[in-house]
Structure formats: structure tokens, C-alpha cells
């Protein structure tokens, strides 16, 4: 303390104070504005990234290029983050089997450890969304709020009952039942393929947790009105009424006008 009070009139004291103030302000600002930044909380060892790099070169580099810098056939993966890899590889969408309007979900080609290593490699290339923490995936959020957010942000493509729907030129928004909470969260954060990105400034992590809660709740509760017929609205329901409903009416009229033996 004594040393401080002695040196406070030093000619460099003002500069030091200014520097300190700038650093503190900048540091606080950086902390405050990391809502869109990666939160590198999932731990990847250097060995994971190295093994992942080998897997990447032998499985993904054909399209995504050496060092994941992208080619004509596939986008650059620098900065897409571990969440994107965990979603695309973890749901079997990548590696892509064939070219098409979009890469559909299919049996996974890498086990959990290999997926983890690939994610570690891609995360090491540049900052991006990380794999979500368990506390936002627990399904213990506010389902009513989640339902409201879902209807505003998601239902137009994924259907109000999350049964999926068609997009343009062969693309489609998949059904969301049976998708793990982690993959739902990762899809929102990274915006795979044609899905828009819902970053943490758009939908807060709490809001995403509510949406997942809502989705898990409607999945567990099923359809309150009996058979949901695919939840596709008037098409499947109309088909059912025309075939089954009119069929029953026709059967009754035939019975009414027939003679008994």
C-alpha cells in the first residue's frame, strides 16, 4: 500500500491507470458479448484432435478438402464448431452417401469415440458452437413457453406437431420425434443444411431448453385425439374420411337395400 501511494504521482501512473481501465472494460465487454461465441467447455485432448484429423483425411477430405478448407463439392468446415460435427456425423447425415437435394438421416458410420475425435479436430480449426452442456438438455424447462417459441420459430417448417414438412425442390424439414435432445440443440445452434441458424441471441439457451422440453413432452404424451394419421393435417385426414368414412356409409346403404335371405 505504501509503495502504491508513493508512486501515484509518477509521470507514468496516469498511463498505467488508463491502460488498466481499458483492459478491464475490454475484458468485461468481451465476456459480455460472447453469446454468439463458442463455449469450449467440452474437453478435447490434443490426442483426440490428432486422431480426428486422421479420420477426417481418410473420410471427409474428398469433399471438404485437406484441412477442411472446402472444395467445389463441400463447404469449408473452419469455424462450424464441434456441435455441427456432432450433429451431422452423429445422426449419420455425414458422410453423405450420394448427392441429392439434402443429406437425409441414415445409420451412423462412426462410433461415439470417432465422432468425438472428428468433432475435436474440426473444433481445433476455429472457434464455433460447442457441444451443448447437459443442463440445457435435461427437458426440465418450461414446456408452455417452449411451445410458444416452437410455434413462432419452428412450426412453419417442422409442423405444429413436429411431424416435419416439405420444402422446395425435394428438400424437407424432418420430423422431430425420436431425435435426441442434444441433436435438436445442435441443429438449432448450427443451422444444418437449409435450416436457419438460431444463435443464442435469437433463442437464448434457456429458450432452447424450453423448446426441447416441449418437444419431449408432446412426444411422450402422444396425440390426445386418438390416431394422429401422421399429423399432416387435411391431406391424410381427408384421405381417411373419404376412404374409411364414405366406405362405411356405402356399406350401410348396401345393407339397408339388400334382401335378407
Amino acid at each position: 500500500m505504501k509503495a502504491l501511494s508513493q508512486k501515484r504521482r509518477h509521470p507514468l501512473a496516469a498511463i498505467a491507470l488508463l491502460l488498466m481501465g481499458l483492459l478491464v472494460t475490454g475484458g468485461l465487454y468481451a465476456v459480455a458479448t460472447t453469446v454468439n461465441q463458442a463455449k469450449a467447455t467440452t474437453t478435447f485432448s490434443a490426442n483426440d484432435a490428432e486422431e480426428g484429423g486422421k479420420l477426417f483425411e481418410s473420410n471427409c477430405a474428398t469433399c471438404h478438402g485437406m484441412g477442411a478448407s472446402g472444395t467445389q463439392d463441400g463447404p469449408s468446415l473452419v469455424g462450424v464448431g464441434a456441435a455441427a460435427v456432432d450433429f451431422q456425423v452423429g445422426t449419420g447425415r455425414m458422410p453423405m452417401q450420394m448427392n441429392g437435394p439434402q443429406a437425409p438421416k441414415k445409420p451412423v458410420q462412426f462410433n461415439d469415440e470417432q465422432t468425438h475425435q472428428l468433432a475435436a479436430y474440426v473444433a481445433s480449426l476455429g472457434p464455433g458452437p460447442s457441444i451443448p452442456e447437459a443442463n440445457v438438455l435435461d427437458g426440465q424447462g418450461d414446456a408452455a413457453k417452449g411451445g410458444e417459441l416452437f410455434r413462432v420459430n419452428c412450426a412453419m417448417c417442422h409442423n405444429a406437431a413436429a411431424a416435419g414438412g416439405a420444402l422446395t425442390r425435394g428438400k424437407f424439414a424432418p420430423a422431430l420425434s425420436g431425435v435426441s435432445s442434444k441433436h435438436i440443440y445442435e441443429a438449432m445452434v448450427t443451422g444444418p443444411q437449409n435450416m436457419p441458424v438460431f444463435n443464442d441471441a435469437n433463442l437464448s439457451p434457456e429458450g432452447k431448453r424450453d423448446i426441447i422440453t416441449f418437444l419431449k413432452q408432446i412426444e411422450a404424451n402422444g396425440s390426445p385425439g386418438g390416431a394422429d394419421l401422421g399429423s399432416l393435417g387435411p391431406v391424410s385426414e381427408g384421405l381417411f374420411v373419404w376412404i374409411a368414412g364414405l366406405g362405411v356409409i356405402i356399406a350401410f346403404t348396401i345393407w339397408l337395400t339388400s334382401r335378407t335371405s
Partner: protein
Amino acid sequence: MGNHSDGSPNHSGTVATAGQNEVEKFQDPGIPPHRLRLADTDPKAAKRAERQVALLFGTSVVGTLIFLVAYFAIDLGDDSTIATIRLQNALLGIGTAFAMLGIGTGIVHWAKALMPDHEVSEERHAIRTEDDRQAAVRIVDDIVEETGIKRRPLIRNTLLGAVALAPLPALAVFGDLGPRPDDALAHTMWAPQDGKLKRLTRDPDGTPIKAADVTIGSAFHVIPEGLNELNEGKLNEKAKSVVLLMRLNPEELHPSPGRADWAYNGIVAYSKICTHVGCPVALYEQQTHHLLCPCHQSTFDLTQECKVIFGPASRPLPQLPIAVDAEGYLVATSDFHEPVGPSYWEREQHERNINA
């Protein structure tokens, strides 16, 4: 057979014309012979049919009991779950169906299998004679004569006038059905209020959006600032002013002259109301930059100022001019420059007024 090669008409002689007279004397075939049913001849079959009808009526009784049990025995207290409600719904439905169908099918089966089924033929009524018609005409003539409407034109004309004027009060009543919409369709909440530009806020919670929040590939569902605070007409205002906010690479946007400053660093805002019949166009594909309307598949290309590239919509989606205020929040610099949503009668006139 005749010789076809010389082109002469072919008379085989077997196509006789003599049968026509017989057609006129077409014999009434009468009612087919009565066929007895099994229940008419065999007492065992009759007994069986009787039991079947009783069984159907019994089904109806069971259905009613199921309904009553489901209604009174299933407790829908505070601690009941959706599964309980669903169970009760299913049982109420099944109970009602059996109760109604049991009675209906029972009566039909009773009538078909057991009630007498002998055929009855009724003769047609004789056709009315000319005299009846003449009598009716005479009655009308008598009425006209007795009212004296032909002889008293003053009465006739005042009656006509009174009947013609009577519907007029109805017109005045129709006028009270509601205020005329005037140009309410042409204006939205986005218009700056008292010189203060409206901020773009998130749907549903109404928090303002910073330009930095909208990363490339994002899609924000946007409502105007102050919408949630409206006390009345909130849904009507929301229906006109909902906006979709997206960010692209600025090189991918191709703004036409005069619209260059409507976007901010690749962030663009477009009305979500389809110009076809007004469904919310919110299916955004972030790679192709297409916006799809879920109702009739109208597709809009964001890179060409939401030009219609497929489907029945006739106009591009209206763009909302946006900028950033001093605090970094996105604001609308003006209202839409055309009426949003589908066409209506005075739309073009309203559009001219907006741009005048």
C-alpha cells in the same frame, strides 16, 4: 351376306321392321313372384333373427352403460393426467357409437328379417282435368276483381311506392355494421411515431434486436416495438406487421436503385404475409435463400428482392427498410412502401397514395 365391294346397301333381310308394333303393346311384367325369407318358413330361423335383434338392442344398452360409467366413474380431478382425459374421451365416444348404432341396426334388421315383406302396388292418381286449372284461374281473377286494384290506381301506386321504400332502413342498419376499413390495410405499426423510429423486436417476447445478434444464416421472427403493449386490436396489428429478418452475404443481395439503403450489412427484413392470400411465409432455406409459403407453395427468392419464382403469388413480398439506431438496435426507417398482404379492391390506389 351382301356384296360389300360394290358399295350397295346391305340388306340381309333379317332386320325386320315388323316388330315395332309389338313394342307398343309392351306387356306389363308385373311384380316378380314373392320370395319367402328363411324366417318366414323356418321357425328356428325366425327365432334366431329375433335373438339377433335383441342382441343389437342389448349392445345399445351396453353402450349407454359404458357412457354413463365413463362419465361418472372416471375422476377428472386436479391430479388427473392427459391419459385419463383421453381414456374418458375414447369411452364416451365408443359408448355413444354403440348406443346409437345398436338401436339403428337393430330396427333395420328387425324390419328386414321379421316384419312382413309382402309387396304392395299402388295405382297412379288420375291426371288432373282441365276443369281444375280453370277453377284455380277463376279464384285468382276473383281476388283481383274484388280488391279492385285495377279500378283504384291511387291505392296501387301508393302500395308500390311503400314496398319499394321499405328496404331503405335496412341499408342504414348495414351502415352501422362497423367502421369502414378505409386505408387501414395500407398502414402498419412500423410507421415512425412522433419522429421516433420503431425498433425491430423478437416475437413473442418483444425484446429489441441488435444488428450483431443476426449472424449469417439466421432467421428472426420479428414484431414491431410496442405491439405487446397494445390493449386492443393487437392481433389485427400483428397480422399486418409481422416481419422475417435474415442475414445474407451482402454480395448476394441485388438491391434495385433506391433500395440500396433498405438493408443493413446484408440484414434484410421482409413482410411475412404472402401476397397471394395472406398465409405467413416463414419457411426460410438459408442455403438457397428461398422463402416458401406453406399454403400454396409460392416461392420467393431473397436474393432478387423476394421476387416470385414459383407459385400463385402475384407480387414480391414487401420489404421493410431498416437501419441501426444510436444504441446498435435495428429500427425500421419507415413503414412498408406498399400495402402488405394479398390484393384488395383499392390496393393500387393506396399504393399510389403511399408513394405520392
